[in-house]
């Protein structure tokens, strides 16, 4: 398995904050689906944004942050412009906020193509329509001319997926891709994402707080707590987790047919944020 | 139950004023607001100590020494009647301050009364009162003040009345918005259950809660008041000569401007400094609070 992304001891500190938001996180990614799980504030979203170098108000340090042939630490902003949206992209949480409210959704998708290719608007439009079809949008011509407030959340997120996969990136980060959606459309959106990622051999990082989603959808899981990776294991081994925090997270989940005792309260110990993982 | 509630009710006004202290501390952290506060402090000092600071009597003419340039004897020069400009400026600070104070004293209660009544009762009363407010708002304040002064007759007192008449609507708007958020609070319902009259509820429970934001809005308004008053004075519709009002001083100095620049320069600098000071404080206050709400007229 070829390594797409190699991160060693990544730390991110927002300026003015007392403690780093991400503290010496290391992982590798091949053509697989990696889940990053943690509570809100655990630094999981910050990892994604740090990889794309979107954090203007934070200091990023790492021993190594290699994306294929690119050293993300040393890359200039100019180089990053060629990487963002072209080779690495990110699906954001809520299409209600992540789509520009006053532009046609189709034009917004096409813009991703135009940002990286010398192409006419007509060509970009054709590409966009094709991509909209492949995220199972039935009437792409009509949807192209709609505004974000006119599409449902599920469709908005499919449009977002189309926008981010249009340029055939090698790595996609999905930051809580389904948390803003109705439960009923979550599976649909996830399966579309899953199909595209498999077909195109894309490396995928799914950032989520939803342990079940990650367990069913990903190959491997990182558990983050207070800016640190406390445990890393294959999704199928999740039940054999060693770390007390992971065990706590699992135990705090209700199960149909399970015992009717009150669910245990999640423990949080400060020393988990300190001990080296 | 009565005894239980009494201390609470009495503490409402004090609780409402507590944020002002925090705001003041916030202002002291920014150099621009500190500059503004310093200028205002100087202005107040000058007004209090005018007899000590002034080197001459503000109305004393010296026809042998007219239009004299700034010198050791007349720091800012003399005007066309040989009056000392520095001394007139110092005495004029009293006029400026009293305009600000009087306008604020008139505008605050009017705005509060209209706003709280409209917000408290809602419905028809609210619609009618806000319609009237909108009519006053549909004029630039200087033009409406001009018309009022023309109707009432040009002098300082009428200028103050005119400015007050044109600057209450934004205060009323704000007080209404605040009242609408407070009128369904539990302590208002509690007062109503105790049988308090509407007047009592408005005066004792609602007005104190509106006070901090209204006072801030009034501060923001002071720069406009100064500029409008100076503009009226300049057009001959405000303070009348020989009063040492800064705008009027510029108006009379205008005729001698080409040869005697000091006649218009120093009063203008004084107006600019004071209005800038209030604007700097206002800007700091705006940062300290919700920016959107304060941007509205």
């Amino acid at each position, binding site marked *: 398995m070829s390594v797409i992304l190699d991160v060693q001891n990544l730390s991110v500190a927002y300026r003015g904050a007392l403690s780093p938001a991400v503290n010496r996180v290391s992982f590798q990614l091949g053509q697989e689906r990696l889940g990053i799980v943690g509570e809100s504030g655990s630094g999981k979203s910050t990892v994604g944004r740090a990889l794309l170098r*979107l954090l203007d108000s934070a200091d990023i340090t790492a021993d190594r942050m290699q994306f294929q042939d690119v050293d993300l630490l040393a890359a200039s902003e100019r180089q990053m*412009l060629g990487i*963002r*949206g072209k080779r690495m*992209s990110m699906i954001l949480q809520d299409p209600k906020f992540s789509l520009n*409210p006053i532009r046609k959704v189709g034009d917004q998708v096409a813009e991703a193509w135009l940002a990286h290719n010398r192409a006419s608007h007509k060509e970009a439009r054709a590409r966009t329509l094709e991509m909209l079809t492949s995220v199972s949008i039935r009437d792409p011509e009509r949807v192209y001319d709609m505004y974000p407030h006119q599409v449902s959340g599920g469709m908005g997120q499919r449009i977002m997926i189309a926008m981010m996969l249009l340029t055939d990136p090698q790595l996609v980060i999905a930051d809580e891709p389904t948390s803003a959606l109705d439960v009923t459309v979550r599976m649909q959106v996830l399966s579309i994402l899953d199909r595209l990622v498999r077909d195109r051999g894309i490396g995928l990082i799914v950032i989520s707080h939803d342990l079940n989603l990650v367990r069913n959808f990903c190959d491997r899981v990182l558990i983050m707590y207070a800016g640190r990776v406390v445990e890393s294991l294959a999704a199928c081994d999740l039940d054999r987790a060693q770390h007390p925090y992971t065990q706590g997270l699992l135990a705090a989940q209700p199960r149909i047919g399970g015992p009717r005792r009150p669910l245990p309260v999640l423990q949080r110990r400060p020393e988990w944020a300190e001990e080296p993982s | 139950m009565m005894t239980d509630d009494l201390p609470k009710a009495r503490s409402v006004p004090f609780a409402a004023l507590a944020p002002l202290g925090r705001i003041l501390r916030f202002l002291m952290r920014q150099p621009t607001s500190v500059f503004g506060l310093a200028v205002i402090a100087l202005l107040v000092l000058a007004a209090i100590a005018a007899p000590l600071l002034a080197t001459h009597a503000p109305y004393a003419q010296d026809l042998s020494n007219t239009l004299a340039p700034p010198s050791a004897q007349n720091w800012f020069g003399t005007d066309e009647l040989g009056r000392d400009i520095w001394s007139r400026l110092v005495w004029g600070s009293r006029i400026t301050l009293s305009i600000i104070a009087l306008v604020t004293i008139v505008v605050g209660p009017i705005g509060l009364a209209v706003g709280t009544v409209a917000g408290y009762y809602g419905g028809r009363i609210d619609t009618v009162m806000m319609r009237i407010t909108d009519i006053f708002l549909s004029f*630039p304040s200087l033009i409406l003040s001009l018309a009022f002064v023309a109707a009432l007759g040009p002098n300082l007192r009428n200028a103050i009345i005119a400015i007050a008449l044109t600057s209450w609507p934004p205060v009323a708007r704000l007080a209404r918005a605040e009242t609408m958020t407070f009128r369904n609070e539990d302590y208002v319902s509690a007062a109503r259950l105790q049988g308090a009259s509407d007047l009592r509820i408005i005066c004792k429970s609602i007005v104190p809660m509106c006070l901090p934001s209204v006072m801030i809005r009034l501060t923001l308004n002071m720069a406009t008041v100064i500029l409008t008053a100076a503009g009226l004075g300049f057009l001959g519709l405000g303070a009348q000569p020989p009063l040492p009002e800064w705008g009027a001083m510029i108006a009379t100095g205008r005729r001698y401007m080409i040869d005697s620049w000091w006649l218009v320069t120093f009063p*203008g600098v004084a107006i600019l400094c004071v209005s800038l000071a209030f604007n700097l404080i206002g800007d700091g206050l705006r940062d300290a609070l919700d920016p959107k709400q304060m941007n509205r007229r």
Partner: protein
Amino acid sequence: MSPTSRMTGFARQLGTIAITLLGLLVLTFAIGRLMPADPVRAIVGEEATQDTYMQVYTQLGFDRPLPVQFLMYLRDVLTGDFGTSIRTGQPVINDIMAVMPATLELATLAILIGAGLGIPLGVLAAVKKDRWPDHVIRIFSLMGHSMPIFWTGMIALLIFYAALGWVGGGGRISDYYIGLVPPVTNFIVIDAMLAREWDVVRSALNHLILPASLLGYSSSAYITRMTRSFMLDQINQEYITTARVKGLSRRQTIWRHAFLNIRVQLVTIVALAYGALLEGAVLIETVFSWPGFGQYLTSNLMTGDMNAVMTCVLLVGVIFIALNLLSDVLYRVFDPRTR
């Protein structure tokens, strides 16, 4: 929004405007009646007999109760009769038509300068929030907001006209050009261009540039502040992150996304700033001897010309209401969310 609810919304807005206009008329009527000048005496002259005086007095309806007088005023206004100016002997409306182009010329150039200065500065201040460009721009625009414009006008005349001689002094053109160009539109720059009198064009621009710059600077203060606050609202939105993830540069996200999204808001505040210029125009026209609306209003205030004052005040109110309405309409037309 369904078509019917939009229609009722529109009807309600028209009703609101009608009531506001009526209130405006009450206000101008009150101002007119409060004015100390005696309009009858001004018409009949000082030497007129008591009989003639009383005749005109009843003719003008001053003997009727105030509500009736108001209805008469209302009728006159609705039929387009704003009365005659005592000072000029002309119908007030003609007088105003004659002076308005001078003010519009001044205000239009001023708003172009104000928006041209204020919008880029506001964007820059937002992008550089809390860093030194933001602070410099803040002080610069607060200065514009704080200066007594009549005084700045004088100082500018002292420096640029009297000392340096870069620009023309008071008035719209230099004296020896007066009457050279036939008045077609009463906008001197346009008239002179039509007549191909390039010296006159230059002279007119020379006189226009200083007062227009000062007015523009003072209105740029408001435009800068609003632009900055609109931009800050946009810059922190998630869709800006999306645009950057797509590979757009910071500059592109600012101008292609954030800025385009505030353009409707900007048009509305520029419209409101244009109305507010009338206020500055009253003062600046006095300083620059500019024969426009502001000077017409102030000279009538001095002489107590009741009809003229009432009409001027009414006109300013109507302009303000119209601009407010315009900004509402623009919002509805250009924001897809309200369509």
